[in-house]
């Protein structure tokens, strides 16, 4: 079946992708809300920055992360000194790289869902005694759910496949950062590594397709619950 190296890569990919999505979800919701509901000076700039990972070469993003979050970087250094937390060469750093790369996709999906929520319903909730925060969690968020789900799963699939940012920021460390993409890359360079590389390619394909399938099913179920199927 699969060699230990391949299983490692698979397990690691899944773990990194799950952490990436889970950690960036609250930020994505917050940013989507900010862009959808608020007007402020510099809003276009924020929008542009959020979308940078879509436009810039992934290696550039990886490089930025290296400068900022490496143990000698301004933020990474502080994290290392204060908490002993190292991101570079670790799966957590890989999760950060994957999260940054898939962030714009998540935000777009969530923002669309948010903009589709009827503001009239939110006002109705307020007349019934709910504060703004209460309205968000009890009305807005449940109604955004299909979009949040889709965005999360697309981000998950995207995280599974990240390469450029990951290898530039956290390097290729077997068992720590060698996700499926990096493993395929290494194997493709190794003489006689092609068969293994192809196996991993197939696994990646299956994973990505499954994720998209699950996302569609879930979104459909939720939409039906909301009476919008």
């Amino acid at each position, binding site marked *: 079946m699969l060699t230990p190296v391949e299983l490692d890569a698979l397990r690691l990919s899944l773990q990194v992708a799950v952490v990436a999505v889970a950690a960036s979800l609250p930020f994505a919701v917050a940013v989507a809300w900010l862009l959808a509901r608020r007007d402020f000076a510099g809003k276009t700039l924020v929008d542009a920055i959020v979308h940078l990972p879509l436009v810039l070469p992934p290696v550039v993003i990886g490089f930025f992360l290296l400068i900022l979050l490496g143990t000698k970087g301004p933020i990474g250094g502080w994290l290392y000194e204060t908490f002993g937390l190292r991101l570079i*060469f670790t799966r957590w750093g890989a999760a950060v790289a994957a999260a940054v790369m898939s962030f714009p996709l998540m935000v777009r999906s969530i923002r669309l869902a948010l903009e589709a929520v009827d503001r009239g319903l939110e006002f109705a909730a307020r007349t019934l005694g709910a504060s703004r925060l209460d309205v968000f969690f009890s009305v807005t968020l449940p109604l955004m759910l299909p979009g949040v789900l889709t965005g999360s799963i697309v981000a998950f699939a995207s995280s599974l496949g990240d390469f450029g940012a990951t290898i530039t920021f956290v390097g*290729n460390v*077997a068992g720590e950062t060698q996700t499926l993409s990096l493993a395929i890359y290494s*194997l*493709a*360079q190794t*003489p006689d590594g092609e068969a293994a590389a192809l196996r991993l390619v197939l696994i990646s394909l299956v994973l990505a397709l499954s994720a998209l399938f699950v996302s569609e099913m879930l979104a459909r179920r939720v939409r039906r619950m909301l009476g919008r199927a």
Partner: protein
Amino acid sequence: MVFRLLVAAGLAAALTLAVPAPSRAQEITVFAAASLQNALEEIGAAYRQRTGHGAIFSFAASSALARQIEQGAPAAIFASADEQWMDYLQQRNLIVDATRKPLLGNSLVLVVPAGNTAQIELKPGFDFARVLGADGRWVTGDPSNVPVGRYAEEALKNLGTWDFAQTRLVRAENVRVALAFVERGEAAAGIVYSTDAALSQKVRVAGVFPATSHKPVTYPVALVARHDTPAAREFLAFLESDESKAIFRKFGFVVH
């Protein structure tokens, strides 16, 4: 107004690109191991000054380059950092066997970030763990395919610390990327060629691997079969000239 300026600038750029560069037909493409970058660029400049013709270089791990040539990349000359990748192409009849020559040699060193004053004798059973610290990692080219990584693995195996070292290894695409990690201080140590270490102010050589601990580092060079042209042969000859040898020596390579 701004829009018009942008359109004008765009048109100007496009026109510049359309102007044919001087004697393109004479320019050859050279695929070379990453560690040869600085030396070869200087040699390329000297060649242009001397003949008016240029060379286009592509520097990467020898493994990546060999596979690209195998896929049909338009390289005329291949300079590898180990014999195995040249063998790889020779077995597939992709080089002009007669032109294969061992051009250079190099030595393998252990480097640390500049601030670290450690000095260690690289003998069997040396304490790698002490160099790295509790959670430090070391970096070199991916031992599964990059020459410098292969030499490193061989050396560490012979010195008896590979089992431990493997658990702390970061695999880089090529020796220059490995060097960069050490320069940044992110990696506690790295194994690179002495020529690479010499180029950087931000790393220090903490120890030199004894020549007995690994196969000699050899840089074979050859003509790629599909692009055997007079221009290519001319450049190959220049690589073996005294002028080039002087430049190689300047950068610390051993010249055969």
